[in-house]
């Protein structure tokens, strides 16, 4: 479904990576590994169409994502290394607004339920700025629970999370893959996520 061919990323005058090829089918997981500065984030931003590759192309269901544009965004969820939450809004408001922006609005009780699953109850009406890093990350990840997209592109989703939260996220990802979803993620943590096939891409 997702097919990447001959991708090249140029930062300034330096080529970060070139000739990156892979494809991803339903239920498959792609783990992108590589040291800092190897272009993992750049690759993920290209996959979701935020950055333009210097060479090569990314095809979704056979069409270049450049030509799909907004249709493609209906099929993906991207969580970057920035949390994408507003400090002055509380967790429920953040979750409802980001879901609405992603094209599937949810009501307050659904938002409450997902935050409950993420272990944030009791803090759902506090402005996010008073929460800890890990708790903010949980607010961000709660989006995955209400998302109805096929392809998840996750940049270091496990950073700042404690052990129980890591297990929680692992569970969410496994469930998504089991339902035929796809995940592209980067992580420095050593976790084993069950998938039909786990592919690895090494950048250096």
């Amino acid at each position, binding site marked *: 479904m997702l097919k990447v061919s001959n991708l090249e990323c140029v930062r300034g005058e330096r080529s970060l990576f070139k000739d990156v090829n892979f494809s991803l089918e339903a239920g498959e997981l792609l783990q992108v590994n590589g040291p800092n500065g190897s272009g993992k984030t750049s690759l993920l931003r290209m996959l979701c169409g935020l950055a333009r590759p210097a060479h090569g192309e990314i095809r979704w269901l056979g069409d270049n994502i450049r030509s799909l544009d*907004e249709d493609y*965004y209906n099929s993906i969820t991207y969580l970057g290394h*920035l949390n994408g*939450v*507003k400090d*002055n*809004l509380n967790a429920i*408001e953040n979750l409802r607004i980001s879901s609405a*922006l*992603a094209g599937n609005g949810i009501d307050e009780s659904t938002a409450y339920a997902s935050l409950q699953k993420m272990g944030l109850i009791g803090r759902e009406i506090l402005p996010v700025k008073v929460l800890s890093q890990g708790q903010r990350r949980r607010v961000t990840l709660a989006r995955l629970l209400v998302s109805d997209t096929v392809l998840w592109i996750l940049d270091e989703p496990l950073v700042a999370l404690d052990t129980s939260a890591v297990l929680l996220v692992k569970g969410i990802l496994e469930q998504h893959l089991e339902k035929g979803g796809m995940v592209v993620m980067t992580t420095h943590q050593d976790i084993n996520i069950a998938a039909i096939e786990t592919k690895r891409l090494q950048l250096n």
Partner: protein
Amino acid sequence: MFLWVIQRDLLLAMRQRSDVLTTLFFFIIVVSLFPLGVGPEINMLRSMAPGVVWVAALLASMLSLERMFSSDYLDGTLEQMMLSPQPLILLVLGKALAHWMVTGVPLVLISPILGFQFDLQTDALLVLAVSLLLGTPVLSLIGAIGAALTLGLRGGGVLVSLLVLPLYIPVLIFGAGAVEAVSAGLGASAHLSLLGAFLLLSLVLAPWATAAALRISTE
């Protein structure tokens, strides 16, 4: 969806009321400084009033431009907006309108009171408010282009004024001109219809340019 963006930005502005008030008081202070600078001679003040109020409105609207996209850019919510299945143009339009509601509308409402400081007549006060009502959304729409182009650059705030102020000139000329025309006993309808035309034109073109600029700046 489009309403979600407006609602979100208004909610954020409510949580951070000081930002709104800062812009409003900046406007009031700048307008009040002019009589102190040029002297209290009432005829001169009356003839200066439209220009002074309009220049202050330009500066006040510009002051808050930098924030339009930069806070969303820094916390990652801008990325999420750009990945929304909704057209980016609509989101940009929503943000510009929210910016106008937060910075433009208060200026429109307070302007008649400031007009009293300059001894403007009732009909002139009314036209001043109407001209600001038509003109300030244009400022937010054009300003959005500048804010998007300078996103994440050092010295973005000063740079944005350099880019945007020359483009504000037609609005200034016809906004202040409308009030002058009324004070001189001529009708303001020609000026106001031109301001209306600018508004329509910028509603159509500015979000398009802003969306292009945002794509360039976040790439």
